[in-house]
C-alpha cells in the first residue's frame, strides 16, 4: 500500500471490498431497480462480483492489467443485463490502460478511469443526464482529473471524486430517464435514484477505501 500509487494487491483488495459491499447493498440496489426497472440490479452485481472473487487467485501476481481484464471478462460472462456489458467494458478498458504497468500513479488512475468511462459511453451510447451510471461516473472522473491536475494528493482527489459521484448519484433522482429500462417509464421515472449510478458510487467509494491509503 502506498499513498502515491495503486499496486496489484490494492486492486485485489478493492475487488474484495467491492464484492463485500455489493453483497450488503444487494437488496438496496434491487429495491432501487424495482422502482424504475426490473428488480435485478443488486442480484446481477452481486452475482458478478462473487464470480470475480473466484478468479482473483488465478491472476499472475503483479499483473494489474490481467486482473482488470480478467475481472471484466468474468463480469461479462456472469452479470448479463445492461450492467454486465457496461461494467465489463469499464474494467476491460481500465485493464488496457494498465498494460505493462506494475503500479498506477494518480495520473495513471485518472487516465484509466477516463478510458473505462469512455468505454461505457461507446457501448451504451448514453449521455450525461440520461439517468444512468454515467451520471455518477462522469462527475467523479472530472473531479479526479481536476484534483490530480491541481497537484492534490491522489487520496484527496479520489475522495473528491467519490463526493462528486455521490452528488451525481443523488442528482439522478429528479431526472427523466432516456436510456436503459427506466426510460420506458417516461415521466414516471423521475423521483427515483438510478440503481446503476448507485452501484457506480459504491464501487468508487470502495476504491477510496482501498487505493492510496497509508
Amino acid at each position, binding site marked *: 500500500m502506498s499513498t502515491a500509487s495503486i499496486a496489484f494487491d490494492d486492486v485485489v483488495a478493492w475487488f474484495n471490498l467491492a464484492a463485500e459491499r455489493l453483497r450488503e447493498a444487494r437488496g438496496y440496489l434491487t429495491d432501487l431497480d*424495482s*422502482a424504475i426497472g*426490473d*428488480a435485478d440490479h443488486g442480484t446481477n452485481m452481486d452475482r458478478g462480483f462473487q464470480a470475480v472473487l473466484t478468479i482473483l487467485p488465478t491472476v499472475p501476481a503483479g499483473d494489474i492489467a490481467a486482473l482488470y481484464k480478467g475481472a471484466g471478462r468474468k463480469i461479462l*460472462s456472469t452479470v448479463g443485463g445492461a*450492467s*454486465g456489458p457496461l461494467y465489463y467494458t469499464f474494467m476491460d478498458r481500465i485493464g488496457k490502460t494498465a498494460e505493462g504497468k506494475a503500479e498506477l500513479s494518480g495520473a495513471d488512475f485518472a487516465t484509466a478511469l477516463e478510458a473505462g468511462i469512455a468505454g461505457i459511453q461507446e457501448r451504451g451510447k448514453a449521455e450525461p443526464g440520461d439517468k444512468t451510471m454515467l451520471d455518477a461516473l462522469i462527475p467523479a472522473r472530472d473531479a479526479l482529473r481536476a484534483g490530480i491536475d491541481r497537484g492534490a494528493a491522489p487520496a484527496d482527489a479520489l475522495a473528491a471524486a467519490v463526493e462528486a459521484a455521490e452528488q451525481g448519484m443523488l442528482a439522478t433522482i429528479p431526472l427523466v430517464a432516456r436510456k436503459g429500462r427506466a426510460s*420506458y*417509464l417516461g415521466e414516471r421515472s423521475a423521483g427515483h435514484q438510478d440503481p446503476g449510478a448507485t452501484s457506480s458510487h459504491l464501487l468508487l467509494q470502495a476504491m477510496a477505501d482501498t487505493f492510496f491509503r497509508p
Partner: protein
Amino acid sequence: MKKLINTPEDVVDQALAGMIAAHPGYIRVEEPNIVVRMDAPRPGKVGVISGGGSGHEPMHGGFVGMGMLDAACPGAVFTSPVPDQMLAATKAVNGGAGVLHIVKNYTGDIMNFEIAAEMARDEGIEVTAVVIADDVAVKDSLYTAGRRGVGGTVLAEKIVGAAAEAGADIATVTALCQKVQDNVRSMGMALTSCTVPAAGKPTFELGDDEMEIGIGIHGEPGRTRMKLATADEITEMLAGPILDDLPFKAGDEVLAFVNGMGGTPLVELYIVFNKLAQICEARGVKITRSLVGNYITSLEMAGCSITLLKLDEELTKYWDAPVNTPALRWGV
C-alpha cells in the same frame, strides 16, 4: 413470496432440467445453459437463435424445435443472458449457412448479443441480427432506448423459423424477420405485479382497485396507473394504440395474439379476445389467424398483452407451416 421453487438461485437451472426431462425428444441443454434443438446443427440450414432473461416461459426455450428456434439462451430471471451463451448457441446451431440472432430491444440484450456476434464473426460465422421493438406503450425516439420487444417476438420466431426450415438463405431469413418487426405492434397491462424470486417481494405495489397500463414483460411499472376497468375497456385501451400505430387499416388481414402474463387464466384471455375481435371488425380489420394463451409471460403477473401482426401471403404461409416445439406444435 409464494412460488413453487426451491431456492431463488436454482430456479433457472431446475426449470431447464425439468423442461429437458419433459421433452426429451426435442431439445438438449448444453453448457453454459443453452437450450439446443436435438438435431442441431443441420448442415446448410440457417440457424435461428434467440434469448433473453428467464421468467417469460415458454419463451424462448419452449420455442426450440423443428420449424422455430434452433437454440435459446435463458438468462437469470429478467436478466439478459451473457455473450458466452449466445456465442455457444451460435456455434451449436451453425450449419454453415449463417445464424440469425432475434434480439428483443432491451439495452442489455442488445449489448450482450452485439458482443456475442462480434465474437462469432471472429470465429468465421456469418451472423445477422434483427431487433424486435413492437411495444407501442413506449414512445419511440432517437434519444431513448426505444420500444421494447414483446409479443411480436413469438410471432417472429415462428415465422422466421419456418422460413429457415424451408431452406431460405440468411439474407432472406433476416429480411423476413425485419418484415415481421415492421408489421407487428403490441401493448400490455398488469392487474398485479410479479415477484422476482431473488428479490423476494413484488416489483411494484398495486392497490386492490388499480391496474398498470403499458407494462413490459419484466415487472417494470407501466406508463400509467389507473383505476381497474372492465375487460372491454382494457381491450380498447390496448387495441386502440396498436391499431393506430402501424396503422392497421380496413381490409388488412391480421394475426391476433392475446397473451397472458402468467397469472391470468385462459377464460379471461378469451373474454379479451372476444372484445378484440369486435374492435377489429368495427375497423374492417380481418382476423385471419389467432393465438390465445400464455406464451411470453412475466412470471406470475396477472394481466395480458395484445399483439397484432399484419399478414400477407408469405407471412401466413410461414405461420401455418409445421412447427414442433414444446410450446407450439402443429402440422406434425
